[in-house]
């Protein structure tokens, strides 16, 4: 269930060549997991700015929201499977519904199109009960056929769906069956105790109508809004679905326009011509703060920045060097410098300290003297040269790299930045070089292990293999006991931290702008902004 996740953050405001790739950079780890916990850290509402939606009084109906989005492309399509931009995500996820809705805060799953979901004892067969009486925007009924169609679509490599990654390792098309119109049964090839949750935290996991023609000019979903118009790379507009199963939205509709330049987007909010935006780079946040008509909504610890070192190659084949790098990294300063302090420090695991998965007592250490000593012990008394692959085309990456470069300099690390164009970073820098950068979304530990730690994990850039971690991950997937999963996860995280050369110094917040009069917005990692309960004061 790794989601294909859009890069919704700081990208260089005016760098058109790079922005395309940055949004492709999409990686994703992690989606949220089920029941989970992840991001328990963010505590409370995702909209945690002072001018919060809570303050607002009684919702009222009417009004059309004007949304400005930077992250868009002309290749955006009306197929939830190939969402790669915030633009497409924001539009399509307000048209389509998922089987489950995963709360970003508690990571608890709540019913959406599925009203009940149960697994067999060894977590290899899932039975899903569907909500009845739900209508598609074109008036037809929602049935199990639609769900079966959707799963088959995800499993077809030709469809290019991002959900494929979450489903393909566990099942094939023959595993889908529909005993009746409101029941779907999924047979898995191997155990996965959080299968459905991981699917529903993937981008593009909206349920499609049976036989959907993706080349058509419009599309029908079951969601709170209906598509009114769609211009790829330029904008779209939605209107209220009065028959929405979860209660009709307050807004009459949403008009979104694409404003590629971050500076221009900021000016639009300040000028009052935009009500809501997609995310802003942290450097621009102060431009939004302290204004009465505009509020900055922050999403806590939206992603973790990761440095990966190849343990097959010197100097990283000596774990002391990696340990020295960790000790030399002044995480507070890094956070303050690269992101003006908007985020939290991390202790080389991609789980925030507030998360239930977080191993108790784990703290990041900063000890440059010890770092120097370790480095000398490893045979580098005069310091060591390290070439780090980076790309200024990926938002925030270059800031992290530049700041880190300066910070570890005093401990004897001479970091040389090897710059890749955004177009080639993910094919030539990432995973292909001895030291490179990456960002992970907070995720379920087992999901992280699937992709970055387990034997044969596709994105394991350390080229290290720890059977203990692999074994623990298998146990997590095999148990349906949530408490046991937590304990196993903590254990696995500590073990992985010790043996794998990932340096994970910090989490960074994301933030978007909202006009003060707009209330009831919620941020959801998959939908980006969920407008279903939004209203204009």
């Amino acid at each position, binding site marked *: 269930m790794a989601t294909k996740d859009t890069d919704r953050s700081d990208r260089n*405001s005016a760098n058109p060549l790079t922005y395309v790739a940055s949004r492709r950079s999409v990686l994703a780890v992690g989606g949220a997991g089920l029941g989970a916990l992840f991001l328990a850290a963010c505590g409370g509402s995702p909209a945690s700015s002072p001018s919060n939606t809570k303050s607002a009084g009684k919702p009222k109906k009417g009004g059309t929201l004007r949304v400005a989005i930077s992250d868009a492309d002309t290749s955006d399509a009306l197929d939830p499977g190939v969402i790669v931009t915030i633009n497409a995500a924001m539009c399509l996820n307000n048209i389509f519904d998922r089987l489950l809705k995963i709360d970003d805060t508690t990571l608890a799953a709540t019913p959406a199109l599925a009203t009940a979901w149960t697994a067999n004892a060894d977590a290899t067969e899932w039975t899903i009960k569907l909500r009845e009486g739900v209508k598609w925007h074109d008036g037809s009924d929602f049935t199990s056929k639609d769900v079966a169609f959707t799963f088959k679509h995800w499993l077809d490599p030709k469809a290019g769906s991002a959900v494929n990654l979450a489903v393909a390792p566990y099942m094939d098309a023959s595993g889908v069956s529909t005993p009746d119109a409101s029941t779907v049964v999924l047979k898995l090839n191997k155990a996965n105790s959080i299968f459905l949750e991981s699917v529903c935290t993937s981008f593009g996991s909206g349920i499609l109508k049976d036989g959907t023609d993706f080349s058509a000019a419009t599309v029908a979903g079951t969601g709170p809004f209906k598509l009114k118009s769609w211009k790829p790379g330029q904008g779209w507009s939605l209107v209220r679905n009065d028959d929405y199963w979860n209660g009709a939205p307050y807004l009459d509709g949403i008009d979104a326009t694409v404003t590629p330049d971050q500076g221009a987007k900021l000016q639009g909010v300040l000028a009052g011509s935009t009500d809501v935006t997609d995310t802003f*780079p942290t450097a621009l946040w102060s431009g939004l703060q302290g204004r009465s008509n505009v509020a900055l909504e922050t999403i806590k610890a939206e992603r973790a920045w990761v440095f990966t070192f190849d343990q097959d190659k010197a100097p990283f084949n000596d774990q002391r060097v990696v340990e020295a790098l960790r000790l030399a990294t002044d995480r507070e300063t890094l956070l*303050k410098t690269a992101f003006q302090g908007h985020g939290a420090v991390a202790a080389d695991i991609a789980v925030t300290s507030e998360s239930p998965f977080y191993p108790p007592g784990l703290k990041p250490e900063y000890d440059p003297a010890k770092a120097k000593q370790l480095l000398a012990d490893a045979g580098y008394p005069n310091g060591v040269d390290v070439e780090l692959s980076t790309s200024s085309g990926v938002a925030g990456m270059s800031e992290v790299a530049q*700041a880190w*470069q*300066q910070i570890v300099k005093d401990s004897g690390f001479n970091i040389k*930045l090897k*710059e890749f164009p955004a*177009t080639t970073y993910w094919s030539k820098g990432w995973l292909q070089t001895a030291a490179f950068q990456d960002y992970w979304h907070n995720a379920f530990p087992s999901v992280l292990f699937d992709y970055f730690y387990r034997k044969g994990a596709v994105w394991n850039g350390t080229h290290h293999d720890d059977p203990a971690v692999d074994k623990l991950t298998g146990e997590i997937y095999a148990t349906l006991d949530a408490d046991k999963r937590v304990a196993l996860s903590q254990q696995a995280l500590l073990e992985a931290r010790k043996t794998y050369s990932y340096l994970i110094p910090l989490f960074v917040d994301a933030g978007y702008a909202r006009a003060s009069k707009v209330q009831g917005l919620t941020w959801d990692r998959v939908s980006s902004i969920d407008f279903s309960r939004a209203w204009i004061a």
Partner: protein
Amino acid sequence: MSVDGMMQAGDARSRVVRGLAFLRPVTHTWMGRIGLFLVTLMLVVIVFGPALAPHPPNQLNVGLPLTRPGNGLVLGTDNLGRDVLSRLLTGGRMVLLVPIAAVTLATLTGGLVGMVAAYVGGLFDAIVARVFDILLTLPPLLIALAVIAGFGSSVLVLLLTVAVVFAPQIGRVTRGATAAVVTADYVQAARARGERRITIAVREIAPNIMAPVVSDLALRVTYGVIFVASLNFLGLGAQPPSSDWGLSIANSLGYVQVQPFASLAPVVGVAALSVGLNLIADSMMRYLSNDSVKDSML
């Protein structure tokens, strides 16, 4: 009157005076003098700036990120807490050197081809003229994108890109200037004397196309400055953590309302350089063309 004509106005003049007199085409108007001042100032910044910078340009947290001027930080800090003044003082090299290098390269290629074409004439000239025409119809940014898409972005690629864009433009000018000279009787006289072609090119033609070509080059460097700044702005040239002006503008424009000096400083740097060069080029052109309208009585 030719530059030399003005320079050589007396037999008894010392070499020193002649040496200074070469500035005359620039300094003969007050705008030229302002231009010279601006460019000299920028040259000082670019050459001595790194030595004068109070902090290393990439040193983080010299002050809190995005602080406005004050507390000994003349221009405040940027989003990584780096000293804007230090980055201003160190960030001008590429914006000036790349255009100069690129223009030199373009002159050595396009300029030479243009000159040879006009001199040789015939089919070769026709083909060269055609190729120049084709290249000139392509928008420079398009060429830049194509080159960078193909070769990635680095200083060398940037330099080559600018050279590729400028080569046909310079070639056209040299070709025109040479065509005007090549039929001159002194070239014919040299031919009649049986001078070798290379001698004719070096002795007879080159000195006479210098004036228009050089003033054109001055202007070209001006455009080069803006062009390189634009490419860097687009992220196609310099890469972080470079303190390059164009890149700094791009990176700091977003928070212009929070810390305007972080973007204003490099903007002023680029503008001063480009305005200065422009004024110089124009002054030189004026000097060469003598464009006065004394005789109109309109």
